[in-house]
Structure formats: C-alpha cells, structure tokens
C-alpha cells in the first residue's frame, strides 16, 4: 500500500527533515507517527501526499511511483488519499454541505451522487443536522469532523491525518480518534501523525517513532514510548 525506501529530505537551507527512512504500511493498517516537533512527521506525510518531493529514495503508493509521477497525474493520485489537518482548512464562506461537496465537484460527480454521498458521510461523522451551518458556527471538534468527512467522502483507500487532535480538548480528541478507528474498520489505511501521548497509549495501534528525521522504533500495538 505505502512503501517508502531509504527516503531523505534535505531542505535548501540545509535542514535535514528525514534521513534514510524506510517504512512499509499495509492495506487496512492503522499507524501512529509519533515524535517531538521537528522530528519529521509532517514531512513524511507531505512526501506521501506528494506535496513535497524527497531529496533521495523512493516512494510507492498503491500503483503510483511518486518519483516518476507526471505533474498532470498528481490530482488523480490525490483523489485516492484523504488528508486531515490540524487547522481543518475549511472554507469559511461555504456551508458544511458545500465544503464537503467541493471535494466531489472536483471529480465531476453528478449533483444527485454528490448529495447522496455527502449525506452518507455526514451521518458517519454524526453531523447530519449541521448541513447548512457555516464552519464558524461549529465547535473545533465539529470542524475537525467536517474536515474528516471531506477527506473520506469519496472513499479513498488511504487517510492521512496531521495532528488531528492538535487543537482539541481531551474528550473531543478521544471522539475524533474513535471516528478514525471507525473509518479504519472499513478497510481504509490510516496514518496519524501526533504527539498526543495519552491517545496513543489508550487506543493501541502500530506506533512508528521518529526522532531527528530517523525511525527510532516501530512496534505493533506499542505505547508512545519505548
């Protein structure tokens, strides 16, 4: 599903974000990427999402070899990946419905199909009645649910989350993680970058630890640390 071989990422200013990282993530897995800020978690997600390119090494996602992917293929590649952000990245002037429908419009879906899928996904994240609200009228946890709904509305095989609970209180964080588990249970591969220790220790999944751009541990059902 996700195969990363000897990846390094060096920024033009000389900062080494990732160094010789090799990682395999199978279909339907749930993986935490943990580590302190600057350890390279976000860089790794950005490389998988192809919003950055590695300085060396190879990445294969499903059928796509990201080293040789053509620019005009990137949009089609991204349709197979849902991405969740700490800052939600919702459009403030659009309703909840519009924000989610946006992702399907891009794929030229018909109006009826868009309505059907948006309704379904809102049910899944439990916000059916907030259809016509604007993001500013929702709580942080609700906004994150909308962001998740947008990411999975077209059923992508992979879901990436960059600090999804970063700006949420513990209870809401817990709910969001439960939701991600639920999505994972539908055979979606989920990769979550986080430094939320209590979550990682409570909802036990595979843990990949990063420090200074290197993989320092990789444990099935491992706790946050060692």
């Amino acid at each position, binding site marked *: 599903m996700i195969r990363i071989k000897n990846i390094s990422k060096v920024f033009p200013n000389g900062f080494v974000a990732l160094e010789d990282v090799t990682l395999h993530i199978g279909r339907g897995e749930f993986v935490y990427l943990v580590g302190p800020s600057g350890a390279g978690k976000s860089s790794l997600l950005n490389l998988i999402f192809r919003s950055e390119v590695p300085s060396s090494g190879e990445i294969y996602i499903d059928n796509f070899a990201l080293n040789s992917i053509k620019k005009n293929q990137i*949009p089609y*590649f*991204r349709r197979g990946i849902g*991405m969740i952000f700490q800052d939600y*990245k919702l459009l403030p002037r659009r309703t909840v419905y519009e924000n989610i429908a*946006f992702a399907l*419009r*891009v*794929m*030229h879906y018909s109006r009826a199909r868009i309505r059907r899928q948006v309704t379904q996904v809102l049910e899944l994240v439990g916000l059916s009645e907030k259809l016509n609200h604007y993001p500013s009228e929702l709580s942080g946890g609700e906004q994150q649910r909308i962001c998740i709904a947008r990411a999975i509305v077209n059923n992508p095989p992979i879901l990436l989350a960059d600090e999804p609970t970063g700006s949420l209180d513990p209870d809401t964080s817990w709910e969001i993680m439960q939701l991600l588990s639920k999505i994972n249970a539908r055979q979606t591969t989920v990769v979550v970058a986080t430094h939320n220790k209590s979550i990682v220790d409570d909802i036990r999944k595979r843990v990949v630890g990063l420090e200074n751009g290197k993989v320092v541990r990789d444990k099935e059902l491992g706790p946050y640390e060692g």
Partner: protein
Amino acid sequence: MMTDFIFFLSEAITGMRRSGLMILISIATISVSLIVLGMFLLMSANIANLGDFMASKLEIRLYLRQSASEGGESDLRARIAKMKEVKSVKLVTRDQAWKKFQTNYPNMPLADWVRSNPLPDTIYVKLIDQKDIESMAAYFRRMDSLIDDVVYGGVIAQQIKTVSNFLRYSGFVLVGLLTLATLLIVMNTIRLTVIARQHEIEIMQLVGATNQFVRWPFLIEGLIIGSLGSGVSIIILKFFYVFFVQWFQDTIPYFPLMYDVNTLRTIYLMLAGMGVFLGVIGAFIAVSRSLKTTF
C-alpha cells in the same frame, strides 16, 4: 458537464462580486482601450475608402491659364475630344466653378476675403481606361501652353495610400502598446480575485482538482470582463460614429465617408474578439502563477 459549468459560472460570479470595484475598473479600462482602437480602425477604414473613391474617378483635370481666350479653349477641347483614349470632355468655366463652390460651401466666407474669383477655367477629361491615366496626364502637361496644370485622381489616391499605410504601421505599434497595457490591468484585477481565493485553490488542489478545473472559474470571469468591456466600447463607438457621420455630412457635404455595413460589422467584431481575448488571456496568466506556487 452541465453540473461543472453551472458550478464554474457561480464560482466566477461569486469571485467577481467580492472584488466589485476592481472588476468595474477593469471593464472600463478594456472599454477605453477598445474605443481608442476602434476609432483608429474607423479612421483607417475611412482613409482607405477615400483613396478608393479618388482612384475610381477616371478623370483628369486641366487647369487653364487665366489668360486663356474662349477661342483657344474650344479648339483645345476639340483636339482632346478627338483622341481615342478619351471618353468625354467638359468645360467648367471659372464663373461656374465659383458659383458651385459658393453653393456647396455656404458657410465659408471666402468671397469676403478674396476680392476676385481665384478659380481657373477647368477642362474635365474622362478616360475610357483607367490604365492610361498617367501617360495621358503626362501628355496633357506638354500638349499646349494654355494648360497651366494637370491634376488627376491617381496622384491624390497615391498620396492617400501613403498616409493610410503610415497610419496602418504606426497603428500596429499603438494597438500593441494598448493591448499590453490592458492585458496588464486585466491580469492584475483577476490576480486580486485569485489571491482572495488562494486558500480555496490550495484546498481544491489538496482534494485532487486538476489545474484545468481550478482555472475554469477564473477564465469565465475573464471572459465576462472582456465581453462586458468590449460590449460597452462597441455601443459607445456605434453612437459616436453615427453622430460623427451626421455632423461631418452637415459640415462638409459630399465627402465620401465610409458607412459600409459590412466593414463596420467587421470592425465591431474585431473589437469584441479583442475584448474576449484580453479577458481570457489575462485570467489565464493570473491564475497560472498561483498554480505554480502551490507545487
């Protein structure tokens, strides 16, 4: 396909409503540029028309010396009329010419400041074939001492052609500069709506929108701006030209102004095309810069 189009259109309109004043300025700029361009085209068309008109007159004018006697004149006319290249010969005396001038230009108080009739007796020679006009003119110049000067449409037509060519080439430069200036303004206007939607574009790309998809609403916006701008310019030019033709006909009657419907339509179509071109190209460049920075 239809769903996409409605979406793009509504996106374009939302974008335009958000940057209202700049859009109006953009439309006005396109209008002004196209009006200048249109006036220029109308002027060229008129000059070309005048040249054609002059050339179409198969006529040579022989201005006679003031001292010419009636007898010499009629003898000269008879000799010319006998030539095989000549179709007809007509004498217009200085008195006739003077009277005609005064009826044609009643507003010109020439008689007040010219004490006597300044016009010469003139023989108008019409030829059978336009080809002979130059050689015949040259011949008349040496033919008789009664003939003071020879003028034919060819010379004037030639001069008008030179002027019209000059205008055409200087026009290319003018049109080029105007196009560039307009393009820059349109580009910057649409750039503003692009920047206002930078966030949106980024999210569109994150959820897998192709560049094409991101571009469309902005291209439609450019298309609308361009069409409105050229529409306004065409309406203004049409009124202006009708008014101008009337005013000119009143001031200088019988002047061969161009009001050929087809030529006018071509000019207006060119302006419309130019407006749409400017709007769409401006939008394309404006949005392309944003698409590059995101990757």
